[in-house]
């Protein structure tokens, strides 16, 4: 028995046209938390999928406890005690939490489910690891945090010794992230070995023992976390130094661009998601709305952009009443919107990049003739320009199908499209979610450039670094209401947290 729980030696995995993993070696010690770091598309998820049996590597071998093993499918992985929390949760929405946990490893008698036995075991695990769940709740009705805990319980239920977490924190709130870090540390202390993927260096610094860095499918190196700094890590990952502190001049707010009064938006359930919210955004300032996911930010943006009607209240933009205006009218009168969910709203994934880049302006005379024919040549020129200016990387340029692009580049395309519209008001919702640090830097820079060009920017984010660094003003949202307003340099993260969880309140 060696010191490694799992070794992945010289793994090479190719996809048509790309080497996703090129001779990568990763050794996971028993009882350690090992972080995996790399830009979007560096090959992290692929490597983990190989370990979990979702893909087969073309070259290289996997060793478990020093012995060579074959992992052909998740069943094999399970048998070897390897479990994975996927980047995109793999939960059946209409099943209960309990059903999701036992799926694939059901206790049965003659084919019939023994739910009581399963429930007992799950609740035991839940108590032991402080993983709060409601076993009978349907997954579609629970928070992302609980979904995450369900995924973790899924692994523990199978007595897995090696746990893979693929970007588990991308969708969690600060509190939930903190909780998760504690859970991971606890698991490691129990002797479980953990592989942890994240784009957030502070998390890696906090929990991991080692960190392996990948770049463009290649192995860059493995370092001991306690011997390194975020700066060093990012340099390893991107190949250059990345500045974390956002450089910006003080704001010079001008006229009011967006004026929201007593806005109320209906929610999924009986309760209104947004209640009597009023605020203003001026030219030349970035206002950030923050709060824990599910406190009405999404609906607030839907209301602003016209995706959902208001129940009451009014919206004025540049003095004009746009309360009842359609999405299109808002867009043409100067509103841009970087949506929260780029796959749901932001992109037509099966359209080409150029078609996506004109998604908000295809109807303008420069792209469509009077007869209704699309001006293909002009569209191509426009798209080529944006690709060049915003450094959108893709396989076949303008004609690339967006689905095949990496998440970070998809996001860049949206940002390019929305900014190039030259809006008076830019609404940016979670603009950096799931994007690597190099891209985060450039997105932040662009938001500030917009501000400096005299635009109004409304940022909606729950990424605390972003909330503290980018905006000029912070508004905290809790249960559909605005409960606090701050200047970034006059408030601490802890203070914000109190407002976000409803522990403190002020009249706004």
């Amino acid at each position, binding site marked *: 028995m060696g010191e490694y729980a799992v070794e992945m030696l010289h793994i090479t995995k190719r996809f*048509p*046209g790309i080497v996703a993993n090129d001779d990568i070696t990763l050794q996971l010690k028993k009882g350690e938390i090992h972080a995996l770091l790399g830009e979007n598309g560096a090959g992290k998820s692929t490597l983990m999928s190989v370990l979990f049996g979702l893909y087969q590597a073309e070259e290289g071998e996997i060793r478990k406890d020093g012995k060579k093993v074959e992992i052909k499918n998740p069943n094999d992985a399970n048998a070897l005690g390897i479990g994975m929390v996927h980047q995109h949760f793999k939960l059946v929405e209409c099943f209960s939490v309990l059903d999701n946990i036992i799926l694939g490893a059901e206790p049965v008698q003659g084919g019939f489910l023994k739910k009581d036995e399963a429930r007992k075991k799950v609740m035991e695990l839940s108590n032991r690891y402080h993983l709060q769940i409601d076993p009978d709740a349907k997954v579609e009705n629970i928070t992302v945090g609980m979904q995450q805990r369900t995924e973790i319980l899924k692994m523990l239920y199978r007595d897995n010794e090696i746990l893979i977490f693929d970007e588990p924190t991308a969708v969690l709130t600060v509190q939930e992230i903190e909780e998760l870090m504690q859970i991971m540390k606890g698991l490691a202390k129990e002797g479980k070995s953990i592989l942890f993927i994240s784009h957030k260096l502070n998390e890696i610094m906090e929990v991991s023992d080692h960190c392996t860095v990948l770049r463009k499918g290649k192995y860059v190196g493995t370092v001991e976390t306690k011997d390194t700094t975020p700066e060093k890590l990012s340099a390893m990952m991107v190949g250059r130094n990345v500045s974390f502190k956002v450089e910006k001049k003080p704001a010079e707010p001008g006229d009011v661009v967006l004026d929201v009064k007593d806005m109320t938006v209906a929610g999924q359930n009986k309760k209104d998601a947004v209640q009597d919210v009023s605020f203003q955004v001026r030219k030349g300032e970035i206002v950030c709305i923050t709060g824990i996911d599910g406190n009405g930010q999404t609906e607030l943006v839907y209301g602003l*952009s016209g*995706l959902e009607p208001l129940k009451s209240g009014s919206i004025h933009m540049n003095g004009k009443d746009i309360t009842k205006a*359609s*999405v*299109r*009218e*808002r*867009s*043409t009168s100067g509103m841009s*919107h970087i*949506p929260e969910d780029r796959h*749901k*709203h*932001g*992109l*037509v*994934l*099966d*359209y080409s990049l150029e*078609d996506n880049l004109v*998604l*908000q302006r*295809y*109807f303008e005379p420069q792209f*469509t003739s009077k007869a*209704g*024919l*699309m001006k*293909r040549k002009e569209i191509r020129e426009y798209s080529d320009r944006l690709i060049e200016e915003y450094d959108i990387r893709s396989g076949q340029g303008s004609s690339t199908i967006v689905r095949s692009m990496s998440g970070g580049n998809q996001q860049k395309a949206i940002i390019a499209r929305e900014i190039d519209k030259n809006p008076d008001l830019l609404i940016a919702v979670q603009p950096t979610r799931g994007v690597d640090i190099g891209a985060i830097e450039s997105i932040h820079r662009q938001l500030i450039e917009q501000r400096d060009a005299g635009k109004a920017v409304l940022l909606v984010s729950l990424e605390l670094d972003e909330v503290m660094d980018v905006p000029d003003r912070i508004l905290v949202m809790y249960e559909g209401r605005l409960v606090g307003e701050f200047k970034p340099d006059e408030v601490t993260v802890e203070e914000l947290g109190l407002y976000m969880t409803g522990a403190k309140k002020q009249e706004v």
Partner: protein
Amino acid sequence: MNTKNEKKRFLEIGGVQTVIASLICIILGLLVGYIVLLCINPAGAWDAMTSILKNFLYFPRPEVALEYFGSTLAKTAPLLMCTLSILFAYKVGLFNIGASGQYAVGAGLALYLALAYQMPWYVCMIAAMIGGGLLGGIAGILKAYLNVNEVIAGIMLNWISLYSVNMLLTNVKESSTTYTMALKTNSPDALIPSLGLDKLFSDNRYVTIAIPLAVIIAILVWVVMSKTKLGYELKATGLNKNAAKYAGMKEKRNMILTMAIAGCLAGLGAAFLYLSGIEQWSCAQTAVPAMGFNGIAAAFLGGLNPIGSIFSAFFIQHITSGGSYVDKMVYCAQISDLISAIIIYFCGFVLFFKYCMNRKAKK
């Protein structure tokens, strides 16, 4: 090396792939069909297969063959319209299985106006188009506002239309038969004009301007889908209705519009057939018109491309008509249905073969 590259590039062209994939499906279908024929009666299999494939060429005299070529074309026109109807909706992410019902309604209105009110052909044609469009629109509204799956709504509407049209057309049927009155004798103005086209096909009077019209409409559909703002919007709605809404498109309206246009196409198809006089509606009909279902096959066989559909619709009609020349003393009448059903089944594999070729070409 160079030629290899060229070959590779040639294979990468979407159109080439579609044609090859469709040909593979046809060949597979014919092969399996042939095996079935062999199983039933080995002696007549070859003759039967050639009769099906020859269709009008079965006639030794060229002028007769030409005449029946014209008839095949006359029946291709409505099939092409149904194909376009299905294809159009499919491109927008909707499955218009209701084409049959829209077709029935088109036939109902066209024939009713022609026979009860002696309306001229263009009025009947427009009415058929509107009728089909309305029915399609209903399915669209149900989908857009009430989230009713359009396939199921389409199936229900097919039957409702069939029974309603039967009831309506009973008012204009021949007094001693179950058929609607013949247009030639009862409402000659309702017949689509030939403008001399019939002369090209040994005076086949069913060869009307419906045929070139159908081809023009196919080209029009292609232009709309790939070149216009409307096509851009509709396709975007089909691929991601949330994104369409986000981009300020009226996604509900687009969905309804799509189904309505699809319905118009199917309704027009019925007008093309019934106003050519080649067929009379039987008011005792208990099966939904097969045209709509054949259209599904033709749409896939044509690689979901409007231009490809012109050829695939012709091919499907060609073998359907060819089926009637099979020697009925050797094989029973349903054998031709069987062969075309087999080919239709294999049409389901077109996209798969295309995908395979794509992968091969990329490698």
